[in-house]
Structure formats: C-alpha cells, structure tokens
C-alpha cells in the first residue's frame, strides 16, 4: 500500500503542501532524481508507519546478529574442547561471530534501500538476509556435525 507515495507525487510542483520539507536534503544530494520530477531528489515522505516498520525490521536483525555474536563467543570459550579436535570450537564459533557482523551491516544497507524505495514509491527490494542466514547456519551445522564425527573417531 504505497499508493500515497507513488510516482505521480514526485512531479508535483514544490509548495503543494504535501510535505515540502527541507530537512531531507542534507547528506542525500549525491543521488539524482528519476528525471521526471522538479522537486527534491529524495522522493517524498512516506507514511510514518512504513518507516517505523522498516526500523523495527532493522532492529530485529540487529538482535539476531547480537545473538549470533554472543553465541559464537560462548561456543569458543565455554564449550569443553572436542576430544581429539582441540581447534574445533573455533571452527564453529568464528563463523558465527563473522555471520553476526555480516548480518548487522547487511541489514543496515537494506534498511537504507527500503527507506529509499519507500520515499520513491517503488517496490521494496527483496531482502537477502534470510538467504544469507539460512545458508550460513546450514553450513555451520554441517561443519559441527563433521567435527563431532571426527572427534568421536579420534578419541579413544
């Protein structure tokens, strides 16, 4: 339901009263408009509910990445070492920490892309974070299973 920020609004002359704000021009002047508008190149203000929802999505991914980071740290430090595979904990913990970092950065980039799409009344870009998370978790799980097997074989 982004009809109220659809492309027709961009062509409206400035001063029509639908939010001719000035604060959004700072820092976003590097982007050019789509060519058909004479107003600001930053689109129009979307419904505040969409901006709030976008923000909540970012925060949810941030909590996910925090959990991954602390989970990776806990595995590397608190888990007893695999018998026969002393470096095994790091093989699981380090990717989890890196994954948390990647998800945090990616979710900010996607918040920004979504916010831009909202302001220009375009369809929201598809999020890549679920795919990244699923593939990485599956890979880490496989590695953990392999480690458990190797450890079981090596230990008497």
């Amino acid at each position, binding site marked *: 339901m982004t009809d109220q920020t659809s492309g027709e609004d961009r062509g409206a002359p400035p001063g029509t009263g639908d939010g001719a704000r000035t604060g959004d021009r700072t820092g976003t002047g590097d982007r050019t408009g789509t060519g058909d508008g004479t107003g600001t190149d930053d689109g129009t203000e979307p419904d505040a509910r969409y*901006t709030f929802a976008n*923000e909540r999505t970012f925060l949810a991914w941030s909590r996910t*990445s925090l959990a991954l*980071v*602390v989970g*990776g*740290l806990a595995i590397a430090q608190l888990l007893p070492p695999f018998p026969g595979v002393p470096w095994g904990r790091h093989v699981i913990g380090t990717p989890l920490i890196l994954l948390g970092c990647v998800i945090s950065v990616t979710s900010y980039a996607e918040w*920004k892309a979504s*916010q831009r799409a909202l302001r220009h009344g375009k369809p929201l870009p598809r999020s890549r974070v679920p795919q990244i998370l699923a593939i990485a978790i599956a890979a880490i799980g496989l590695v953990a299973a392999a480690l458990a097997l190797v450890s079981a074989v090596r230990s008497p």
Partner: protein
Amino acid sequence: MNRPAGEPPADDIEYADPGLARERTELAWTRTAISFAAVGAAILKYHPVVGLPVLALSAVVWWLGRLPGAAVAGGTRDRRLLLITLTITAISAAALVLSFLGHGSLLLR
C-alpha cells in the same frame, strides 16, 4: 502515545498519529537494549573490560530509541541505526579477539 487533542498540528509528520507503530517501535528498541544488556552480562563474567562497556551501551540504546528517527526527521540515513550497526561490528571484532584468548586474559591474569 496518546496526545492531547488540541496539540498536534495535522500536517506535521512528527505529530501525525501513526497508530501504534511508534509504540511498537519503542518496544523494539527496548528489546534491542535488553539484548545488548544480555550480551554485556554474558561477556562480563569472563572479560569485565569488554563486558562493562557493552552493558553500559544498553542504556544508550534504550535512550536512542526515544530520540526522533527517520520517521520524524525524514531522509534515508539514520545515525541511530548506523550507530547500532557500528557497535555490533565492534562487539563482533572484540568477540573474535576474545574467542582466541583464554578466560579473563585481558584483566584477570
């Protein structure tokens, strides 16, 4: 967030009532702050030098959630969200270092 009927200018986005979205978002910030506190407390036990700042950060995060963000100020950048991202990046870098150190290597030894 009930506002007095006479107060809100109808055309100002800051005072336009976005339903319960604002309140839900503040609750999301509170959850995020609690997550920071949990992470800080988890690190605190073995690495107080790293854990204490993270624990203090949870208060900062809670306070950030009360500041006006992009929904009020507009634009496609939000320093609060950028700060969250940078903080998590720093925490993960610290966690990476700590994971290769022994228990309490930074302070307790």
